[in-house]
């Protein structure tokens, strides 16, 4: 079973993504900030990561920079899901950027395309 790491500070949105992804046959793990997310990534070696940009403390782009410095994790596809408009440029190597509130089917099809 493919595993997806969800990084978002809003518990309601984390719950939503967990239910949605598990219902569609993925395993999930969650993190509520950047440091927590990096720890979880190292521990679970997820197949894909969904990342919020604006979180208390450090923001999403910092997570991505540190992730790409880790040889084991740097090829993990990242999908940005954030409330910021014009977020396409915040993490240019992300496989996709969705803005909240996002379209469920769009997210699922992007995951399908990018999870190997």
């Amino acid at each position, binding site marked *: 079973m493919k595993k997806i790491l969800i990084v978002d500070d*809003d518990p309601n949105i984390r719950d939503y993504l967990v239910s949605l992804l598990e219902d569609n046959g993925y395993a999930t793990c969650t993190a509520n900030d950047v440091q927590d997310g990096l720890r979880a990534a190292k521990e679970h070696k997820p197949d894909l990561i969904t990342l919020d940009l604006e979180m208390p403390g450090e923001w999403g782009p910092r997570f991505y920079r540190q992730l790409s410095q880790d040889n084991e994790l740097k090829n993990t596809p990242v999908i940005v899901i954030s409330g910021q408009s014009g977020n396409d440029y915040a993490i240019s190597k992300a496989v996709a950027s969705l803005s909240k509130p996002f379209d469920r089917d769009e997210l699922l099809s992007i995951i399908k395309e990018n999870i190997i």
Partner: protein
Amino acid sequence: MAENILLIEDSESHARALQLYLERSGVTVVVGRTLDEMMFKRRAKEFDILLINPFLNGQSICSHIKEAKQYNKLLQVIVLCLKKNLDQAMDEVGTHAINFLEIPVSSKALNLAIMHARKCISNEQRISIYSERLADLEHDRTLYHQLFNQVPCYISIQNQDLRLIGGNSLFQKDFGNAIGEYCYEIYKHRTSSCPTCPVMKTFSDGKSHSTEEVVTALSGQQYHVLTQTAPIFDDNGEITQVMEISTDITKIRQLQGHLSSLGLMLGSMSHGVKGMLTALDGGIYQLESGLKNNNPERIDNAFELIKQMADRIKKMVLEILYYAKSRKLEYKSVDVVKLVETVISTVSNLARKNCVQIEAEIPESLGEFDIDSNWLQSALINLAENAVEACKYDTVRTKSHLVKFILWEDEKKRVCLSIKDNGMGIAQETREKMFTLFFTSKGSQGTGLGLFIANHVVQQHGGNISVESTLGEGTTFKVCLPRKKHEDSLAPFTRMMVQI
């Protein structure tokens, strides 16, 4: 000028001789021998000079001469008569004639009389032109004076020293009769001229200049004005005075401030709004899938989440609506105790969920007060919710949390409500900013509008909010409100807008 002369004389030979004599000097002469025949009253306007013997066939027609003068004010009358009648003619015609000549008329006397008549005619014509012009001038003067006064701007005239030497009605109404005073003293209460004085620039280059200023009227009211100047030249083309026209643009500035802060607010809140909408989507998804899979636990959770999100979105939308529309309060007489009880019961659910106890010290009755219950109630609920949340976010979990409401009437007969919690307390820095727009200590949970609006609503009602707080020990909010409608109910909001 060739005059038209009407000659009335009953002696045909005498008339003929006069006519010939006069026509030689180039004037037109019409001769009549009886008054009736000539009907000179009607034709009086056609002639410049009336040469008349007022004793036609021995009968006096002096009264008719006066009538003729009434028809033609410019008509010059020269009377001809026999020496014996001269005295009577003078008595009867008097000043209506300019000359009295004795028959037989000497040509010298006649020439002089005609010349005199000419002079009188030209003088009178000139006078009539002058008086027409004078009437026009007077009319224009009144018109321009009226224009000057009725212009809905402040207009003042200033000299080289920047002293006021004139002002229109609106200027005098709002800034007083300030003739002789310095412009900067009257408009801006300064002791020296403004650094960028458009009037001085106009004195030096003769062109129009403009600035934007904030001026203070006699009433203390401040106006944002757009000031434009124009030079006033004297007969030699020198600029001796400058006119300053100031247009009140306070409302436009307020609107701009309002719009820009609204834009700022929407921008700063969009993150929160998007989060809520996503969570709402999540709730709907979970409700849907819970129903499909018949999973009651998921359905319950989803329903709870949807309710929570709907509440938060509703609250935020109402706050935006309040802010977007500066509205008049709709006062109604409301029972004090009932209102406070509604407030308490509204937050008791939130308190129960967070294990916060509620206590209330409320008298049986405190009568009624005039308020807009919609807004005042939501302002008080906001304060009460803050108190519960201060307990909810308190990190000292061992404390048993309590929010206490006390309602009373103070010595000024005002209705006072204190809301005291033993939650986390508010730091000094936060306390200073807590009533300002967009300030929030709750991160994405807050809009930064709640306390701003609560404070504003209470101020609109003529009341005030005070805060006492110790970090780690708790906070007390005290709201005091007058019982009667506050007259100046709209002003505080506009004043606040300008400060943003």
